[in-house]
C-alpha cells in the first residue's frame, strides 16, 4: 500500500514547498510581469507565455509574508486550473521528490490562517520541513477574497 507520488519542490523566502508534479505544466525563469493596477494584491500581473496571457500570482503575498517583493531572479511555476493557466512566482526551484502521501503531517498551528488553508500536509525531511501546497486553494482563495 505504498502510494508514492512525485512532487516538484521550490523555495519561497526560506520556506520549502512542494506541488504535485502532474499539476505543473512548466517552469520558466525571468519572466516579464506586467503589473495590473487595481488588481487583487495577490495578483502580481500578467505574463506572456508564448502568446498566452497568464495571471502571475505573488506567492509571498499569498502566504502572508511581510516582504512581498521578488528579486529579478524569480522563477515562475505554471499550472493549469479550471482550463486557465496560472503562474506562481517563487524564489528558486529544487529537486523532484518521490513522497508517500500517508507520511504527511498536519501543518504546524503557528502558521497564518491563510497559509495553513493552502497546505495539504507537511513532510519532515532530515534537515527541514516541506510544505505540500494545494494548487486549487491557492487560486480559489484569491477569487474569494476579491469578491
Amino acid at each position, binding site marked *: 500500500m505504498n502510494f508514492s507520488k512525485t512532487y516538484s519542490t521550490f523555495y519561497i523566502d526560506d520556506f520549502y514547498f512542494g506541488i504535485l508534479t502532474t499539476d505543473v505544466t512548466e517552469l520558466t525563469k525571468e519572466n*516579464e510581469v*506586467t*503589473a*495590473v*493596477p*487595481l*488588481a*487583487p494584491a495577490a*495578483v502580481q*500581473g*500578467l*505574463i*506572456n507565455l*508564448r*502568446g*498566452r*496571457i*497568464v*495571471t502571475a500570482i505573488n506567492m509571498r503575498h499569498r502566504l502572508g509574508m511581510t516582504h512581498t517583493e521578488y528579486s529579478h531572479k524569480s522563477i515562475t511555476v505554471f499550472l493549469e486550473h*479550471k482550463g*486557465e493557466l*496560472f503562474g506562481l512566482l517563487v524564489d528558486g526551484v529544487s529537486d523532484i521528490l518521490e513522497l508517500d502521501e500517508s507520511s504527511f503531517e498536519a501543518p504546524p498551528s503557528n502558521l497564518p490562517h491563510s497559509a495553513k488553508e493552502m497546505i495539504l500536509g507537511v513532510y519532515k525531511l532530515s534537515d527541514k520541513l516541506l510544505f505540500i501546497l494545494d494548487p486549487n486553494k491557492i*487560486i480559489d482563495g*484569491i*477569487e474569494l477574497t*476579491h*469578491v
Partner: protein
Amino acid sequence: MANSDQFLEEFLLEAEEIFDQLDQSFVQLEKTPEDKKLVGNIFRAMHTLKGSSGFFAFKRIEKVAHAGESLLGKIREGTRVLDESATNVLLQTMDRLREIVKGIETTSAEPQGDDSQLVADLKTLMDGGSLAPRQNTTAPAIEPAPEPASEPVASEAQEEPKPIEVAHKLEQEPVNSTPVADAVEQLQVQLQGIQVQAQAEAPKSSELAQPLKVNVELLDRLMNMVSELVLARNRLLSFATNSGDANFTSTVRTIDMVTLGLQTSMMETRMQPISNVWSKFPRLVRDTAQMCSKKVELVQLGAETELDRTLLESIRDPLMHIVRNSVDHGIESPELRAAKGKKETGTITLSSMHENGMVVITISDDGAGINLPLVAQKAVQKGLATPERVAKMSERELMDFIFLPGFSTKEVVSNLSGRGVGMDVVRTNVQQIGGNVDVISSDQGTKLRIRIPLTLAIMPAVFVRCGNQRFAIPQNNLFEMVRHKKGSGSLGLEDFYGVPVFRLRNKLIPVLFLNKELQIHGDDFESKEALSIVVVQAAGICFGLIVDEVLFMQEVVVKSVGPLLKGVTVYSGATILGDGHVALIFDIGGIAIRSGLISKLLENDFQENIDDGKSAQEEGQSALLFDLINQDRIALPLDYVDRLENFPAHRIERRGPHDVIVYGDKIMRLIWLSDYIEGKTPSSDYRVENISVVVHYHKGQPLGFVVKQVHDIVSLPNEIIMLSPPQPGVMGSAILDDSVVSILNVDDIIRRFENTHASENPAHMSVEG
C-alpha cells in the same frame, strides 16, 4: 451511446435549419400563393423532418409533421388553396414542431403534450373544410427583450458550439492545357472572359465540393494558434532585420507571407453573412403585424454582408427588438396611413454594408417617426430634465432620452413593446461589442443606424503611457486627442462641483486623471507645459482622460485577462505587443463608472454646452474652416465632414469625367470645390505635391472635396447673412472674429456635381483585384 448522441445532435441541427427555411418559405408563399415550387420545397422539408423523427421514434413530431405534410400535399396538387387560415394553421404546426424539438434539445426526449386539436384542424382543412374563427390562432414568435450580454464577447463562444459551414474554396483553374500554337490567342480570349467564367463556374464548384461542417471549438482553437503564430512571426521579423543574413531574412519573409495568408483565411472562416440572423425576420414581421392589425412589408438589402459570427450572435436580439418596435410603434395602422396619404402597406427596410472597416446596419421604416415633443414631455414628467432645458435641447439630445432605461413614449403598454425596456438594452448590447447606435426620425419614418466593427478579435487601439506602463484605448471609444495648454488656474482646468473640467470648443468636458484612477505614480503634471487629454466616449458620457503621453496607434489582438481579473472592471482585455510585452486594454465605460463621474455629473445637472452670456450666442453649428485657391475663410458644416485626408497629387486618376482616388476599397470621386464657387479654375493652380481632401460619405460612397488648406473647427453664429444675389454653392455668410466667412451649400454643390455627370452611375464602380 456516444454515437446516438451524435446522431441526435445532427438531427437537432438539421431541424433548426429546416425551421428557418420553412419560416421564410411560408411568408414568401403568402405573397405568391401560386408558386408551386415553393409549396414543393415546404412539402419536402416537412417530409424530411417526419422521416428523421421516425428514426428516433419521436411520435409527436411524426404525427404533427405527417398531418402538415398531408395538407401541403393537397395544396401542392392544387385541390386546396392556401388561404390565410391554412397559412396560420401551418405556421402553428411549425411552431408546435419547433417547441417539441426545443424540448428534445434540453431533455433528449420528446416532451409531453396534446396535439389532437392541431392535427384535427389540419385534417379539417385537408378535407376541404374551414375552421371556426378563433382569436389569434397563430402563436406569435414573441421573445423577451434582449438581455445585456453578461460577459464581454471577446471571451468567445460562451454557448454550446455549433458546427458552422465552411465552404470549400475550390480554386477552379479556368485555363485548361491548350496546344502551344494558339495558346496566346486562347489566353487573350480567356483573360477577357475570366470574370464571366469564374462567376459561371462558381455554382458548379459548389456542386463538386459539399460544404463541410466543422466544429466551432476547433475553429476557435485554430484561430488562437494563428494569433500566436502571428505574434511569433512578429518577433522573428525583428530578429531578421537585425541579422543581416540574407538566407535567414528570405526564409523569414516566406514565413511572413504564409502567416499573413493563413491569418486572412482564418478570419474568413469566422465570417458569416448577416442573412443568418435576418432569415428569422420575415416571420417576425408577419406575426407582429398581424397581432397589431397592420400591413407591413419587409425589404432586405445587403443580406450577404459578412461579419464575425460572435458579433452576429450579439446583434441578433437588438435587431429583433428594433424590427418589432418598428412594426408596433413606427408603422401606423392602414387607415391612418391612408388618411396621411401614405401607402397602406408600410415598409421596413433592413440594409447592411461595409464602410471603413465597420459594418453599418440600418433599419428604416416609413412610419410615423418618433414624437419628439412627446419625448420632451415625458422627460420632464420623469424629472430627467427641466422644461427650460428641454426647450433648449437639440433633436439629437432629445433623441438620446429614448435610450434611457425605463423610458417609453408609448401611451398603452402592449405585450409587444412600449414597456420602456429595450432601447437601452439595444444600445448597451451594441456598445459592448464596440459599436454605436444613432437615430434619425421625421414624420416620414424612423431610421436607426447601427455601426459595429467587422471583428472583435482584432481592433485598432491607441496606446498611452501612464507611469511606466502602456495601456490601450479602443479606437471605438476615442473621440479626439487634445494637447491642453495650461492657462490660469490649477493645471488650466476648471472645477464643476469637485469635478475637474476643461473647455473644448464651447463645451465643458469633465476629465479624469488616469494615474489617480489607476492609483499609480505618473508624471508630475505641475511641471509640464501642456496636458495630454484623450477625449473618449462611453456609457453615455464624453470625458477626457489625462494621460502622461499618447504613444502610437496599433491593431491589437484582444485576449482575455483571465478569471482573477474579471472583477476589475476597468479592463476589457489584454494584448501582446510586438516586443512580447503584455499591455492592458481599457474598458472606458468601466473607468467612467468606477470613477463615480457619471453620478457626480447627474447629481449636479451637468451641461456640456456652456450657455453663459457670449458663448450662448456663439453656440451654433460647428463647421470646418478652410481656404480655397482664391478665396479664404470658407466654412463647411461639420455634419458633412467624415474625415480629413492628405493625398499625394500623383494618386489622382482620371476615370471618365471624374478625378478619382482609390480610398480604402472604394473609389472616391473628387470635387474641386473652387470650380463650384469661383468658377472654373485653371488646373495649374493645383500643381502642388499634396492635396487636402475633406471626405464626405454621400449615399454610401466617398466624395472628396478638394480644398487648399484646412484651418480649424469653429462654431458658427446662429445668425447667417443671406447673400443677394445668391452666389452659387454658398448658403450665406457669417461674421466670426470680426471677419466674414462664407458657408458652403454642400447639397447644392453635390447636386450640381451629379447633374454635370448624370450620364454615369458611380454606384457601380468598384476596385478590381
